[in-house]
């Protein structure tokens, strides 16, 4: 039994030290995930809090064989918590909350398929900021598709719209991000 398993087992029994260790070890990565979905650090911390409570409460249901890695399992819980949070926050579920001006820009920029961009020229903060600045609908689809590796069909099922809407949202998200990247490069 490795140290992580031991910590996990102790955390299952609500041992404060084990829970604290678990939080300190995993919270930073999970907060980054939450921030990608929520767009601001305050909301992300709220989601992290709720998600971690869920994790602690359902630790006993975690089974390696079925749930895969512990980190992956925690991430799934955190993504679900983030989606619920977004759903509750924007009751109207607006995934097309983009103003017409931006839409126009996107359409103009969509054809601009410029060359490969060097990742070294962008810091993590810069990239995170770009994601956070996306409209929430675009951001959600982009996160789910790119980082969580969901397919359009799965995204459509989860977010309750069509797969084509998901594709459209992703395409627009990419276009907006590309524009932002280009702006940074020009500067």
């Amino acid at each position: 039994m490795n140290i992580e398993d031991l910590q996990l087992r102790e955390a299952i029994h609500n041992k404060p030290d084990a829970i604290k260790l678990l939080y300190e070890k995993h919270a930073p990565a999970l907060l980054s995930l939450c921030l990608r979905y929520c767009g601001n650090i305050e909301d992300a911390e709220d989601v992290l809090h709720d998600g971690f409570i869920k994790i602690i409460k359902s630790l006993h249901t975690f089974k390696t064989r079925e749930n895969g890695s512990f980190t992956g399992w925690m991430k799934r819980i955190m993504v679900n918590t983030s989606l619920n949070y977004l759903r509750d926050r924007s009751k109207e579920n607006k995934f097309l909350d983009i103003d017409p001006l931006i839409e126009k820009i996107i359409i103009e920029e969509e054809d601009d398929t410029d060359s490969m961009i060097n990742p070294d020229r962008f810091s993590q903060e810069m990239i995170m900021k770009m994601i956070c600045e996306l409209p929430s609908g675009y951001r959600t689809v982009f996160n789910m598709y790119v980082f969580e590796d969901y397919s359009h069909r799965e995204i459509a099922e989860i977010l309750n719209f069509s797969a084509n809407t998901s594709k459209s949202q992703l395409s627009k998200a990419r276009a907006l991000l590309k524009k932002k990247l280009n702006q940074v490069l020009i500067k």
Partner: protein
Amino acid sequence: MEKHKNSIDDLFREVLQDHEIVPSELARAAFLKEASGIPQQRWYRSGIFLFIVLASLGIIGGSAIYFLTLNSNGKEQARIKSDPTIYPVEQQTAYANPVKPAKIYSNNLINETTPAKTNQALTPVIPDQENERSIKTHEYHTNPAKPIQVIDTIANQVSQNTEKSASSEIILPAIKNQSLTPEAPAISPASDTSRLISNASYDTTKTQPPLPDPDKEKKQRLNTDWYFSGAIQFTPEWMFNTLEEVKFVNNFGIEGIFTIGKYSIRTGLGLSITKGTNELAVEYNDYLGSYNKLDSMSFSWNGSIHDFIPTYYMKSQDVYDSLMKLDYPKVVKRYTYLQIPLVLGYDFLRSGRFSVGLRAGPILSILLNTKQLSEEYDPGNKKVIRINNITPEQVSMNWQFMGGINASMRLSEKLIFEIEPMAKYYFNSVYEKSEITKKPWSIGIRAAFIIKF
């Protein structure tokens, strides 16, 4: 389906691959405070479970110890009763001559044996363990010359009055056949232990037929005794691997039990009542308000003003938001199942009052009734588009297999109390969509009162 590679995706994925943000101290403190107050979710790891387990073990262990203690005492008592040479004090004082009784110590049992017709007290005899039975017989034969007279007297009395045991009936004719004189001579005061022992061996072992083992007889009787009994039972049960994590089930019913020796077969009818929470997904449009919509209008000619007077017919029109929203109400239902068990049993420990055994067998559950306990979902003035059941309904029939340890205690001749910690395995899920949960299992304690017919 394979995803198309995209440079933007790759860039973002690569840069944020190991991105971390340390939560603020405030957030950390808030989490740790709340986490410390989370009760342990697995209640069955907690005190209740331990209590149930320990109580069950205590009952079973106590029964076993009591049985073992009782059994060893019972053996002694059975031996004393069946041995014609050892009689209780009351009988001896009634049958023997009124002389001072001698005390003979045998195997920790202190028996006041029948004195012979003498005023001389007998010296205590310490019997050889190997010849225990012979010595006991000899207790009445202190004079080897005419040893049987006392036995005969006692035996006659016993056969006339009490007929204490089967073994005494068997042995007495053998003793009588020795044609003894009616008068018993005085016991020689000089009789010593060694002589007594040697005489005793001579007297009894050669003439008596082998004594039947009372324990064996008793066991044989227990092994072949059969009877019917009826029972009323109540079984609280905790089911796991369900959508509600732990589901509490109340079982009660009547049962018929056929017992033959150590084996039993139990069947009957029972009701199993459980509550289930069903979650619904309601898709709706919010109510925004209403307005008066022009339905139709008519015109009538007013001659005095020489104009048409319009009449407007309005109707109230509700306005709903075009955006679809979701609500997740919960509905509580009560499910009543008919249960038909077929449980086989074997008692591996048995005594007069207590027995401990194993029980195992299949149980069939058939859904009899479903009743909604909570109120129907009220959407208010929302426009409901669709209602989907998230939680599936429970199955109409399922099979279980139960196994348990049964401890029973006889309260009176006809009444028996049973307690049976048991576990059940469900061969199929309790839900119609079986793929969403694993096969359930449960633990419970059956308590039953049994009436022997």
